[in-house]
C-alpha cells in the first residue's frame, strides 16, 4: 500500500518553520474558553455495527445473521434496549447506563464518502477526512486544532505512534503508559542541543517529555497494566484535566476484523470499549459533563454471516456518541433496513449518512468552529455533500 503512504515532508516542514517546543505558543494568561473535551476512538479493522447497535426488530436481521444475531432484549445474552427497535450489544452495559441518562446516541448506518473495502485506505480516509488519498497528508483533528486557532486547543494521541487523524501542522503530544525520563533531567537538555539540526526529533522529544511530566505531577501515579483498558481510560482522563490538559484526544482500539469466530472476539473487544469509556467517565469526573466521546470505524461488515461464523468487509456501520455534553435525541440519520433490495451491492448495510456530517456537527457545536473552516479546510469540499448535523451536542 505504498501509494497510500502520504507525503511525510509536511511535518518536517512545519517543524523547521520554528513552531517551537511543545506548547510554548500558549501564553499563561490566554483564556482557555469553555473547557470542552473531545475523545475520538477509532475502532480499527471494521467494527460490526450490526452487533454494536443491533437492529433486532428488523425482520431480516436474524435471517441474515443467523447465529451472529444479537437476541432481542429480555432473552439470554439479549440486546440492551435503546428504543426504536435497536439494542446495544450485551457487553456494553456501561454505555447502556449512559443511554439511560441521555448521554449516549448512535447513528445506525454511517459511512465514508468513498466506497472502499480496504482497511488501510479506508482508515486513511477516515482520518484525513478527505475524499481521496492524494489530496491530504494530515488529519482532520489536527486541522480542527488549526481552525480553532492553532494553540487554543491541545491535541494528544494515546499510543506509541501519532495516528494520521492527529498528524499535521498543529503540535500534538503522544502518550502511552511506562515512561521514566523527565524533562528536567540533564539528558533532556543535552539531547535538545544534539537535535538542533533535526527539529522533528527535537520537538517530538520535548512534547513527549512534557506529557510525561504532566502524568508525574499528579501524586497518585497509577500504574496501567497491559490490557487494563479501564485504567488506560482513567490515565487518559488525567491527561485531559487541569490547566495543561489535552482538549482533543485520539485513541485507537485494534482487533475488529472479525472474519471468523466473531461472537467471542466481539465480546472481548466491546468489553474493552465499554471499559475505556467508563474509565474516561470516572477519570474526567465533573469534566464529563463537557465531554463528547465519538466511536467510529472505517467501514462496516457484510450483512450476512460468512462461512466461518464471521463477517467480511462491508460498507455502513454504526457510530456512537457518548458523554455528558451529548444532547438527548433519537437515531442520528435514518435506518435503511436490511431488506434485500436495500442492501448496498446486495451484501452490505447501506449507509444513510456521511460520517463527516457527524464529525462536523460535533466540532461546530462543541468547539465553535465556523462553517467556512469546516466546509473548506477541516473537511475540504464537504459543504454540499456532508453538511454539519445540528443538535448533537
Amino acid at each position: 500500500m505504498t501509494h497510500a503512504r502520504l507525503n511525510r515532508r509536511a511535518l518536517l516542514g512545519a517543524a523547521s518553520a520554528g513552531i517551537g517546543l511543545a506548547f510554548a505558543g500558549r501564553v499563561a494568561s490566554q483564556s482557555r474558553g469553555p473547557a470542552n473535551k473531545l475523545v475520538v476512538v477509532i475502532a480499527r479493522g471494521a467494527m460490526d455495527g450490526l452487533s454494536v447497535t443491533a437492529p433486532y426488530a428488523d425482520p431480516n436481521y436474524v435471517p441474515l445473521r443467523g447465529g451472529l444475531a444479537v437476541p432481542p432484549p429480555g432473552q439470554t445474552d439479549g440486546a440492551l434496549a435503546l428504543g426504536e427497535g435497536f439494542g446495544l450489544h450485551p457487553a456494553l452495559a456501561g454505555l447502556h447506563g449512559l443511554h439511560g441518562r441521555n448521554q449516549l446516541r448512535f447513528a445506525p448506518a454511517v459511512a465514508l464518502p468513498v466506497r472502499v473495502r480496504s482497511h488501510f485506505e479506508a482508515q486513511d480516509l477516515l482520518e484525513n477526512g478527505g475524499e481521496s488519498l492524494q489530496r491530504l497528508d494530515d488529519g482532520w483533528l489536527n486541522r480542527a486544532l488549526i481552525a480553532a486557532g492553532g494553540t487554543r486547543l491541545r491535541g494528544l494521541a494515546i499510543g506509541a505512534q501519532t495516528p494520521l487523524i492527529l498528524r499535521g501542522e498543529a503540535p500534538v503530544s503522544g502518550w502511552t503508559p511506562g515512561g521514566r525520563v523527565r524533562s528536567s533531567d540533564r539528558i533532556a537538555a543535552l539531547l535538545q542541543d544534539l537535535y538542533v539540526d533535526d527539529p522533528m526529533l527535537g520537538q517530538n522529544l520535548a512534547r513527549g517529555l512534557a506529557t510525561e511530566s504532566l502524568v508525574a505531577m499528579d501524586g497518585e501515579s497509577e500504574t496501567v497494566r497491559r490490557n487494563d483498558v479501564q485504567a488506560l481510560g482513567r490515565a487518559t482522563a488525567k491527561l485531559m484535566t487541569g490547566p495543561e490538559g489535552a482538549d482533543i484526544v485520539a485513541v485507537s482500539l485494534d482487533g475488529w476484523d472479525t472474519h471468523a469466530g466473531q461472537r467471542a472476539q466481539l465480546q472481548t473487544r466491546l468489553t474493552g470499549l465499554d471499559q475505556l469509556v467508563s474509565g474516561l467517565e470516572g477519570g474526567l469526573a465533573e469534566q464529563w459533563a463537557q465531554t463528547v466521546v465519538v466511536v467510529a470505524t472505517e467501514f462496516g461488515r457484510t450483512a450476512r454471516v460468512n462461512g466461518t461464523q464471521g463477517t467480511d468487509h462491508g460498507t455502513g456501520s454504526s457510530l456512537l456518541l457518548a458523554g455528558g455534553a451529548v444532547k438527548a435525541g433519537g437515531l442520528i440519520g435514518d435506518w435503511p433496513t436490511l431488506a434485500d433490495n436495500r442492501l448496498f451491492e446486495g451484501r452490505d448495510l447501506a449507509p444513510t449518512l456521511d460520517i463527516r456530517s457527524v464529525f462536523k456537527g460535533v466540532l461546530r457545536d462543541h468547539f465553535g468552529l465556523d462553517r467556512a473552516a469546516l466546509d473548506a479546510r477541516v473537511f475540504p469540499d464537504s459543504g454540499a455533500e456532508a453538511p454539519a448535523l445540528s443538535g448533537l451536542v
Partner: protein
Amino acid sequence: MAASSTDAAVAVTRLGLGARPGEIGRVAHDPRGWALSQIRPEGAPQPADVLPTTDQRMSAFLAYQALTRQGDGADAEAAREARQSARRAITEETAEAFLVRARHGATTDKGFAERWALFWANALTVSAVKFDSGAFVDPYEREAIRPNVFGRFEDLVVAAEQHPAMLLYLDQARSTGPGSPAGTRRRIGLNENLAREMLELHTVGADAGYTQADVTELARALTGWSIPRPQDAPGEPPFIFRANVHEPGARTVMGKTYPATRRASNRTQGETILRDLARHPATARRLSHRIAGHFVADDPPVALVQRLEAAWTRSDGDLAQVARALIEAPETWSPQPAKIKTPYEFLISAQRALDAPPERIAPLRQTLTLLGQPPFAPPSPEGWPDTAEDWAGPDALVKRLNWARSAAQAARLPDPALAARDALGERLTERTRLAVSRAESRPEALTLLLMSPEFQRR
C-alpha cells in the same frame, strides 16, 4: 564509483543492521562488494540454532487442537489445564525463536541479507496477534521467506501464501466453496480475507483496478487451500489441497479466465492466478516503491524506484537482480541519514554498537512492546509501517530514551568516543562527536550516541 569510507558506513548502517565494533573498517575496501556477496541463490542465512520445523510445529499444533475437542464433566478442569499448557509451550517456543533471530541479527556479518529477509517477511506479513498464526510465524520466516528472498518473487509469494501461518492468519484454511461437495452439504462458505489481502497487500495493490467481483472470484479459486486437521492421518504435509471444499468451475480475475482445477494437475487454479498476479506489472511497481521506501527514504527518489522496477521487469521478478539494482543504484549511497529506524532496527543496531546481543526474551519483548513493535505481532496484514511519522512520535522517543539509558548503564565499552566512531564511521557528525566526548559519564555518553540523530536514522 570509488569506494570511500563514507560508503562503508552507509553500507553497514543503511543496508545492514548497524555496525559492530571494527565492522566498518572491515568492509571499507569494497562496501558494494560486501552487500553484493550476500546475494546467494540459497537465500538469506538461517539463525544458527536448531529450531522447530513447520512439520514439527504442526504436530504440536494438532495435538493442541485435539485437546480443544475433548473434556467435559469431571475432566473439564484437567482438560483446560492441558490445553493451556500446550498453548503456552507453543508460545514460549515461538518467543525463544524470536530471541534466536534477534541474536542472529545482533551478531551476523551479513546484515544486508538479514534486512532483505526481514523486509520480505514484513511485505508478506503474518502476525502472532492470532494464536493460530502465531504458532507458525517463526518457521514461516525460516522456511517460506528466507530460502526464497533471492529467488523469483512468484516462488516466494506462493511459498508464503501456502504456508499454514498465512492460511491461518487470513482465515483461508476453513474457507469453503458454497458449490463444493462439502459446501452443499453444510452451511459453511467463503471467506474473502486471504483473497483480498493477496491482491491488495501481497501483489498488485489497491489501485490496480480490480473490483469486489475479482476478490470474490479469487476467494472461490483459493477454496481448498488448507492445513491438516487433528483427525487426519499423521504425517500429512502442512499444506493440503482439499478438493471437496474447492468451488468447482472456471474463474475470472482481473479480466483473465482460468479453467477449473483439474484433478490430475499439480498446480491449483488458485496458484495459477497467484503466479499471474505476482508477475503483473502493478506488482513490480508497487513493491519496487516499497523497497526503495524501506531502504532509502520515506519518499524515495523516483529514479531509484524506476531502476528497481526496470530490474524487476527485465528479470521477470528475480529478487537477486532487484537486490543487485538496489545496491548498485547511486541513490542508495547518499550520505545523509534519512530513514528513522524501526524499534527493532534501533534495538538490534544498538546491541551491535554496544557489542551486547540480547540474552533473554523477557526484557527484549518488554522493550519492543513499549516501543510499539511487539515481537512477531504486527497489528494488521499491512505489516509494520516504516516512516518517521510512524516511529519518531513524542511518546516513542521518550520510550527510546528510557531504554537507551538502561542499555548505556549496562554497557561494558571502555571508550564511548571509540564506540561512536565504530558505530557510525564517517556518518558521525561533529556535533555528536563533541557531545559524546564532553559527557559527564560513560552511560551519558553512550545514551547520547544511541539517541543522536544519525544513530536514530540510517
